[in-house]
């Protein structure tokens, strides 16, 4: 993992580095993808993907459905063949290797448990497939089951288990043969919201315990934020940004990343840069930095903005609705045809069509080129 890394590698050290040695730890390996290209028929689903995953790192591939993240994962697993490029695992070229020799384990979205086998038999399957004698299997099954707290359910069939329990069995089946790379394809998306939060924490802890390399695919940005050492945001088969969750959230490289992260996502005001100002419907703000005239988009996060009295903010507008969500009040305001979301303290309330003003710290405003979507080196000028 060296020659392809033209971006800051390992902004955060893998959790394995400072964790003390534990008996359950596995031998982690690094994974490198170089210039990977994949097409199904005439549809190019992954375009020139370069990626370097450190040993013991938890990497999350994030993107909307159809962005190529699952295909990328399946190519690492060996379930799809890359049209172009090279994949190495643990510094060994595995581009043309059968999946079973890649030393990777995968947890599928559907868990892929064998319905005709008990939990114990399911966990035993990878060992059996590798011809490990029965006497050695029992101990390994028990250890794996204990690691996911399923040791009391070994004789059950998958249909007798709840969704969360099935998830654990799938995990145990992946752990049992001690792979060096874990692949997960939206493993939590079939669980209900409460269980998902719980399993997320367990997964994170398990990865920390095992110290294994984990590549995790999801479309849920909260999962990505909470689990990842680094997040890879993909769209239309193209890598959009790679970095720590904080980097990706606070310094989005382009409109797509900015709009994908956050709930609700970043607010956008479409307008143009002219005369060193950002001009839009009822908005005119002074700029500094690169102020070449062009169509541009101003973005800011709902939690960074504040609603104040008219005339005291960056621009004036009216309230569309205010919704109490529990911890905050989500205020939607309309600006021309666009609507913008603002998170206000939970005791804030405003009636429909109240005239208000909106403000946010100048450093929290981002400007993007409307045509290319790229972030501009332009900032809002401080106004006081």
């Amino acid at each position, binding site marked *: 993992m060296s020659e392809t890394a033209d971006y800051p590698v390992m902004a955060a050290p893998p959790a394995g580095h400072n964790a003390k040695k534990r008996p359950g730890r596995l031998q982690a390996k690094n994974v490198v993808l170089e210039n990977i290209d994949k097409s199904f028929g005439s549809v190019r689903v992954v375009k020139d993907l370069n990626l370097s995953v450190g040993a013991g790192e938890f990497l999350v591939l994030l993107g909307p459905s159809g962005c190529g993240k699952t295909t990328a994962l399946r190519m690492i697993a060996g*379930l*799809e*063949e890359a049209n172009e490029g090279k994949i190495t695992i643990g510094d060994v070229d*595995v581009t*043309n290797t*059968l*999946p079973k*020799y890649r030393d990777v384990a995968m947890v599928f979205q559907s868990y892929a448990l064998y319905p005709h086998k008990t939990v114990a038999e399911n966990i035993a399957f990878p060992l059996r497939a590798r011809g490990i004698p029965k006497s050695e299997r029992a101990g390994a099954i028990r250890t794996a089951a204990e690691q996911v707290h399923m040791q009391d359910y070994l004789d059950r069939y998958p249909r007798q288990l709840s969704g969360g329990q099935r998830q654990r069995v799938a995990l145990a089946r992946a752990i049992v043969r001690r792979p060096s790379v874990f692949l997960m394809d939206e493993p939590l998306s079939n669980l209900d919201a409460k269980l998902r939060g719980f399993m997320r924490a367990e997964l994170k802890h398990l990865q920390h315990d095992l110290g294994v390399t984990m590549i995790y695919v999801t479309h849920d940005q909260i999962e990505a934020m909470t689990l990842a050492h680094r997040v890879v945001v993909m769209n239309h088969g193209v890598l959009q940004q790679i970095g720590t969750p904080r980097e990706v959230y606070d310094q989005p490289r382009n409109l797509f990343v900015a709009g994908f992260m956050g709930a609700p996502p970043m607010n956008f005001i479409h307008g143009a840069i002219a005369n060193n100002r950002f001009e839009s419907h009822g908005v005119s703000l002074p700029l500094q930095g690169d102020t070449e005239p062009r169509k541009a988009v101003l973005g800011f996060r709902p939690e960074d903005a504040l609603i104040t009295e008219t005339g005291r903010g960056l621009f004036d507008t009216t309230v569309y609705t205010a919704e109490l969500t529990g911890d905050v009040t989500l205020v939607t305001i309309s600006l021309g045809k666009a609507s913008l979301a603002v998170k206000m303290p939970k005791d804030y309330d405003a009636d429909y069509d109240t005239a208000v003003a909106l403000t946010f710290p100048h450093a929290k405003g981002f400007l993007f080129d409307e045509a290319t979507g790229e972030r501009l080196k332009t900032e809002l000028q401080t106004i006081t």
Partner: protein
Amino acid sequence: MAVSTIPASRTRGAGISEWFDRTSRHWFIWPAVIMILVFSLFPLIASLILAMSRIRLRAGGFNVRFVGFDNFEKQLFGSEQFHFLGTFSSISTLGWFVTIVIGLLLLYWIYAHLRRGNVWLPGMIGRLITAAMIFGLTLLFAATLLSGEQFGTLGVTLFYVGFGCGIQFVIGLGLAVVCAQPIRGRTFFRVVFFLPLMITPIGIGYAFRMLADTTKGPFSPVWQWFGLGDFAWAADPWAARIFIIIADSWQWIPFIFVILLAALENVPRDSVEAAHVDGASGWLIFREVTWPQIAPVAATVMLIRVIEAFKLVDLPNIMTSGGPGIATESMTLQAFFAWRAPDFGQSAAIAYLLLFVTVVLCVSFFNLVVMKRRAAEAI
């Protein structure tokens, strides 16, 4: 992606089991392919050569002499014409009338297809072949059946296929619709209706001979009451044919019934319930909601039934031995008799004619009915 594209290993692995795994794609398919090649494709080709030959048995083998289309000519135009096609005389007015009507309908069908635009050449050729075949068969029936003449084994086979399958479909569908109602004892009826399929056709043939006996059979009092005590159904061509169809239906209606019942039970309840809520009558619901959903299955099951009906041989052989005369002889039976004669060349020629008719009609049915039904479902 239904077909996974797990790439072949080019780097690691050794040993016999590894070799088996890497070549598994061949081990899975070749046994079936080889079996079909040896016992189906090769005989199919060899049979064509036999059909163009005169074969003499000699000690330990055969003498084969190539005679071209002589065997076919004999069946279609020569001394066996009466046997295969039927006896021809002048076509009656009714015959001409039916021929012309069918001919015009076929012309209109082709015309309507042409008018719809974007004609695909192979499809057009297929349609023309279908139309030619239907017209030829219409002419055959016009010249024999409708002109009061005896028709041959081709006519008999088509009668079994067309009339027999038609009746079986109507009754099978009716029973399935009835059974799909909320009735009690559905399992019982399902089992009972399925029983005939288990019985060897030979046994059915004999059982129906027994039942039809006008002096010793269970219905003999009825026959006698009608004054038909000495009526021998096996001596009357139409009675014999109908009787074979009844026996055939007795066996095959269950097959159609069970599959259509499964299809009916698969129709989503909410679409029927929505129609109920809209106040539609039972018949309207069936025609507008249920039938379109089971039509693809119905078309498929009828294709299967038609394919099997073309092969009908055991019932005529057991019940009537093809008699009276040749009135109930199916083409397979005719080929069997020719083989026993022994005249392998004629037998193969008859078999090939049967294959030709079967393939043209079944492929037409598949392309024009089954595929259309499926396409309609897909939309």
